[in-house]
């Protein structure tokens, strides 16, 4: 039996079309995450921001 660790990994080349689609998916995920960060930050500020500013010192 051959040692599986010494087996050469088989590589698959993505076609340009597949690369383009993967890039589009990655951009969509990045934009979504960015929008979520903005939304959670903004709503947190809206809901509790005033309480922080006006807290008893």
């Amino acid at each position: 039996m051959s040692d599986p660790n010494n087996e050469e990994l088989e590589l698959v080349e993505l076609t340009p079309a597949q690369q383009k689609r993967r890039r589009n998916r990655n951009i969509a995920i990045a934009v979504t995450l960015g929008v979520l960060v903005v939304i959670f930050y903004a709503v947190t500020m809206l809901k509790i921001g005033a309480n922080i500013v006006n807290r008893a010192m």
Partner: protein
Amino acid sequence: MSTINQATNTNASDKAEFSDADALDFWQLMKPRVMSLVVFTALVGMVIAPGTIHPFVGAVALLCIALGGGASGALNMWYDADIDAIMTRTKNRPIPAGRISAGEALGFGSILAFGSVSMLGVLVSWPAAALLAFTIFFYVVIYTMWLKRTTPQNIVIGGAAGAFPPMIGWAAVTGTVTIESIVLFLIVFMWTPPHFWALALVKSEDYRKAGVPMLPVSAGHDETRKQILLYSLIFVPICLLPLLLGFAGYAYAAIAGAGGIAFLWLALNVYRIREGEAADRASWRLFGYSIFYLFAIFATLLVEHLVALPLFTGVDMTALINGAGL
């Protein structure tokens, strides 16, 4: 650019390891046209609800409701991929067309469902989030998995899923369910059967091939035409309930009234004209007009509340309930 291929042999199944989907395919998976109607009716529910909501929080609520609707669409397409592949209307959807795998759709829909409900609860309102969760459950499990393939009443009961969004919008502002939001629910709920049966009359052969027991397939075209007319006769008066309850005005009375008469006329045409291309045309007309009518009455409610037009006095429900000794 290369990627490690985990399989030792290269064959067609290896292709499944790489997503061929574009971001736009995931967008299509969310049924954007249905989503737009969901967002619009939810917006109306939010605007006419008593109380206030910060515009940004309101926009977040709408986004969550839209994503919840998209989750329902994606999970529906995951489960229905087999029958979607058979029907001409749906065979180009991302899964039957081979652009997205069923597993990807399931994962995408599940994440969206969990994410949209959690986000609506944490950022806006837990009662609204609970309603959204129930809506997704109702559409995916009750309608898609159970009713759709087993009963000709599938879209009558399943239509509830599409009727919840204005109620969710209302709950996002008030945190409650009231008689007014139930009326908004009823309008969309009673609109669904004549709307979908008009389409099913034209596409009945598709449904028959796919084994979906839509009313024209299981009970015949004549019975469907009768049911369309009966449901239309109930639907149009229900559209006038906002006047009775005092959350609609004169513009609404004119549009819902005149438009309702036109709706009944088109439903009557579907009932009367039963042969040839004229029958198909009558069904298409009712299908198209039903979308326009629903949009028109909700848009009128929206405008009346946004520009503060005078509303009808309506019936004092509290006095009515007290008077009835309830």
